[in-house]
């Protein structure tokens, strides 16, 4: 990775990115019990950059500067904490040797990428609870802070901090290292890693939390991690399917909100605002994903995203195919959320009455009771069936659920439609949930 940037101009998220790879690098050198020291050394290097760069100018290679200073801090900390490390001299020797390397020297970027990969695999160890796996991956590999993670998941800082403490305790207790498992253990761990990445992406994608960009960052981080796995020796069709789904779906992010900050449904999206590079990346991985015999849920979701991406205009979308894919997905994952998304495709293919019928049982689902999307879809279907008073009541209930400001404005517009004598029908598409 080259950062031969103009002096004074840093590449976007340089610190966050470098933080992840440096923490992984030091954790490999110091062992997992040195994770805290690794994090401290990286933070201290960045603090020193903050103090000196504005006055002395940006160094010619900011990455190398951070790398070197973090090494010096780590050596200093290891020397001071002699007791807790045991093999102090050996470690210092190792750190000094590594400090002499330039992050762009031949082989070093590959090693750093490999360290990051190993770090995610350690974070997803089965002895660490799933919610802690997510928090730990974001903190150590992603370079996110506790408040940032808390904001992304709408939780308080203390909850996230606790999860991290528990995860680190497990790491020490089990003596986990950055060595990756082999054989069937590897296969299971890879699945855990993919599901954490998938979770990150969906969390980021699911809702627009006001003007908060943090969720957009989650999607980007998930895609980055997915690509890291896909570019390693661990790549498999399933990995490519996950990357394809994230890239194809993520390509729509810029078009999902208009200049006014309002939610734009899939049918109405300006497709010229879909991220062309992300689409190309997605189709590339999609092609690689169909190599094997295995069909995972990622494959099906990638196929759905690809079908949308292929449509030049909203009207040309192959809805029968999408419905068929949702039927398959439902067989994999008979969850109410998948059923809800399927109902949208059902309405497109067989009309609103059929879809309304399909979502009736979902209203009994405790997980969906407070979910505005179910009510938003129901309201829309009622509206399409000319049952305005019922639609209005449903949109009003939807407004009482937790949702973001743009979503709220969308619901208010829908409510206004109900009160017009000639309602302007605007078919709800997967845009509502998968816009």
């Amino acid at each position, binding site marked *: 990775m080259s950062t031969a940037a103009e002096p*004074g101009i*840093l590449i976007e*998220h*340089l*610190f*966050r990115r*470098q*933080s992840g790879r440096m923490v992984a690098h030091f954790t490999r050198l110091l062992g997992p019990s040195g994770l805290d020291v690794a994090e401290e050394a*990286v*933070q201290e290097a*960045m*603090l020193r*950059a*903050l*103090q*000196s*760069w*504005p*006055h002395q100018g*940006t160094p010619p290679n900011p990455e190398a500067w951070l790398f070197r200073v973090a090494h010096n801090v780590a050596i200093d900390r290891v020397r001071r904490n002699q007791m807790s490390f045991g093999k102090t001299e050996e470690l210092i020797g190792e750190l000094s040797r590594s400090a002499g390397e330039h992050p762009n020297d031949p082989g070093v970027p590959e090693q750093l990428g490999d360290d990051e990969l190993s770090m995610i695999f350690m974070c997803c160890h089965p002895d660490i609870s799933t919610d802690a796996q997510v928090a730990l991956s974001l903190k150590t590999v992603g*370079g*996110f*802070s506790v*408040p*940032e993670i808390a904001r992304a998941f709408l939780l308080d800082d203390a909850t996230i901090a606790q999860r991290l403490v528990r995860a680190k305790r497990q790491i020490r207790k089990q003596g986990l290292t950055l060595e990756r498992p082999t054989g069937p253990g590897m296969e299971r761990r890879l699945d855990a890693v993919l599901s954490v990445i998938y979770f990150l992406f969906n969390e980021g994608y699911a809702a627009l939390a006001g003007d908060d960009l943090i969720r957009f*960052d989650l999607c980007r981080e998930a895609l980055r991690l997915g690509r890291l796995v896909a570019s390693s020796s661990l790549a498999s069709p399933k990995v490519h399917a996950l990357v394809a789904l994230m890239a194809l779906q993520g390509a729509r992010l810029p078009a999902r909100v208009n200049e006014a900050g309002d939610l734009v449904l899939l049918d109405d999206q300006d497709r010229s605002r879909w991220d062309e590079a992300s689409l190309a990346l997605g189709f590339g991985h999609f092609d690689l994903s169909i190599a094997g015999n295995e069909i995972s849920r990622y494959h099906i979701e990638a196929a759905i995203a690809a079908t949308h991406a292929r449509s030049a205009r909203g009207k040309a979308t192959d809805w029968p195919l999408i419905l068929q894919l949702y039927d398959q997905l439902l067989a994999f994952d008979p969850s109410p959320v998948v059923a809800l998304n399927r109902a949208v495709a059902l309405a497109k293919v067989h009309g609103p009455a059929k879809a309304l019928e399909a979502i009736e049982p979902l209203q009994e689902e405790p997980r969906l009771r407070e979910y505005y999307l179910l009510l938003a879809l129901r309201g829309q279907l009622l509206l399409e069936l000319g049952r305005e008073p019922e639609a209005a009541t449903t949109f009003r209930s939807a407004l009482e659920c937790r949702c973001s400001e743009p979503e709220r404005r969308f619901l208010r517009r829908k409510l206004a439609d109900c009160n017009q004598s000639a309602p302007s029908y605007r078919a709800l598409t997967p845009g509502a949930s998968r816009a």
Partner: protein
Amino acid sequence: MAQFMLLLYDNPEKWKTLSPDEMQKALEKYMGWVKQPFTLDSKRLAPDPGRVLRSHGKRSSVSDGPYSETKEVLGGYYTIDAADYDAAVKLALEHPHLEYGGTIELRKVYSE
């Protein structure tokens, strides 16, 4: 035109609560200010307590310090060009140091 000094005080501990991303943003804002055409000079002071020299009659003493009561310490300074105090205040109000909770002492450089 006159010259003014901005003496920047802050609590160094508070920077530790920033995420890498936030640190980069802060860094870019401070760097931006150094590049302003009216900024003549800027220096960051080392994050140690420094020394205080005092006179005791014929003897002088040297001690570590100043160790003020408050957590805020003088961390750096800028020298800027401005027409008068009003103009200097206007410029200094835009300094990111305030956004990050620091204090700025503004002093005019004496000249006849």
